[in-house]
């Protein structure tokens, strides 16, 4: 209960600081005297020199750290650049075009064309392992050559194209569309031959006989579902039946590679 009064008296007696009151006046004079009786620590030798030594040491360390800082930034920037390059490469590999670089694809296409040209028979046909497939293989090879020649009737593939077209026109005119070996053409083969005839007939300067043959071939068009299936097989050779691949051999593989949706 006396504390508020004591505090008030304390404030009156200590307007600015705790008085030391050598004569013992004041509420806490004895306490203050006891506190001040505690021995003061002695001054240390070379204290100022040690302080200066420490300052110089810390400043040297700070300077060294400052010099290291640009190097750390260089390392960080290099690491960030490396990560960016890796991300870009990953993005390209994952989402980029699956096709090989242009130069390699051009070389491969040229090699495929040369191979197909070399495999053509003197009568303009391409022979399959199964004779019944000669017409289909010739049609596919012909379409591949036409596609990879800017001017199919006058360019490097002109002779092969003309020979192939003449062979297909002759094939069409045989009784019931029979093959060279006398085997009847299947429905798929007739459709492929019709596609090739229409391709050749559409070329600028195509002979009248080709256009007439293409007109006749329109009756060989299969039902729409079958036509769509054959178109898919031509565009995606991986889905082609194994028997077809074996019958067509390397000429079929090269031709399908040339007919694939191209990047060039």
């Amino acid at each position, binding site marked *: 209960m006396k*504390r508020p009064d*004591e*505090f008030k008296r*304390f*404030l009156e007696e*200590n307007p*600015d*600081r*705790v008085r030391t009151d050598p004569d013992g006046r004041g*509420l*806490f004079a*004895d*306490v*203050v005297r*006891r*506190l*001040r*009786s*505690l021995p*003061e*620590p*002695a*001054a*240390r030798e070379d*204290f*100022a020199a*040690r*302080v*200066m030594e*420490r*300052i110089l040491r*810390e400043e040297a360390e700070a300077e060294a750290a400052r010099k290291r800082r640009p190097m750390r930034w260089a390392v960080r920037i290099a690491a960030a650049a490396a990560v960016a390059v890796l991300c870009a490469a990953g993005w390209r590999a994952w989402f980029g075009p699956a096709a090989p670089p242009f130069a390699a694809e051009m070389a491969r296409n040229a090699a495929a064309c040369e191979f197909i040209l070399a495999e053509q028979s003197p009568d303009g046909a391409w022979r399959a392992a199964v004779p019944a497939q000669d017409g289909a293989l010739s049609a596919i090879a012909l379409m591949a050559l036409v596609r990879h020649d800017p001017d199919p009737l006058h360019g490097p593939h002109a002779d092969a194209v003309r020979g192939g077209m003449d062979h297909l026109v002759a094939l069409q005119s045989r009784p019931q569309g029979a093959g060279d070996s006398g085997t009847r053409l299947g429905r798929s083969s007739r459709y492929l031959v019709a596609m090739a005839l229409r391709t050749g007939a559409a070329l600028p300067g195509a002979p009248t006989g080709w256009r007439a043959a293409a007109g006749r071939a329109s009756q060989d068009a299969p039902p729409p579902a079958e036509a769509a299936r054959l178109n898919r097989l031509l565009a995606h050779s991986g889905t082609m039946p194994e028997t077809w691949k074996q019958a067509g051999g390397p000429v079929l593989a090269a031709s399908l590679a040339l007919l694939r949706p191209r990047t060039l």
Partner: protein
Amino acid sequence: MDDEREIAGGPEGPEPDDHALMERIRAGDERAFRTLVERYQRPLLNFFARMGASNHDDDLAQDTFVRLWKYRMKYQPTAKFTTFLYTLARHAWLDHVRRQGRFADFTARYAEETPSSTDGGMRALRKGMDIQAALDALPVRQREVLVLAVHQGQTYEEISRELSIPVGTVKSRVFNALSALKERFREKT
């Protein structure tokens, strides 16, 4: 010798005051800094010893002067130099307390500010055997104002600026600290 006399004010000249020394220190004068270090070495050692860090008083005093050199450009001669110096000393001491892993104990004591906490302080005081032990047992907030007021001779106004608390709070903390110590000493006698 001429330089030394200039710094020290010469055999007959007055001692340069703290503000004048700090002006020279701001310009990078190491001799002026050494003079200031010699002048306040013992008061700082005493401050840290009374704050319960007698085993580390030398390190902490050094740390305070290193900070003084580092922050010399921030010194403004608008207040008393010791206000600036003891603010740096208090920060050095707080960092020391944290480093010592006693921060939990420190914060617990720091929270003791209500009248009932004085009773807790009284219980702790009974364990003390001498004056320093009684001082150490005070709540930290009371101890620091008492050390600054009694041992460093700071006015309440200066302590108020250093701790950023009202003058009335300084007075009440000093009163509570002295009351606790008086009770402790009465019990002992």
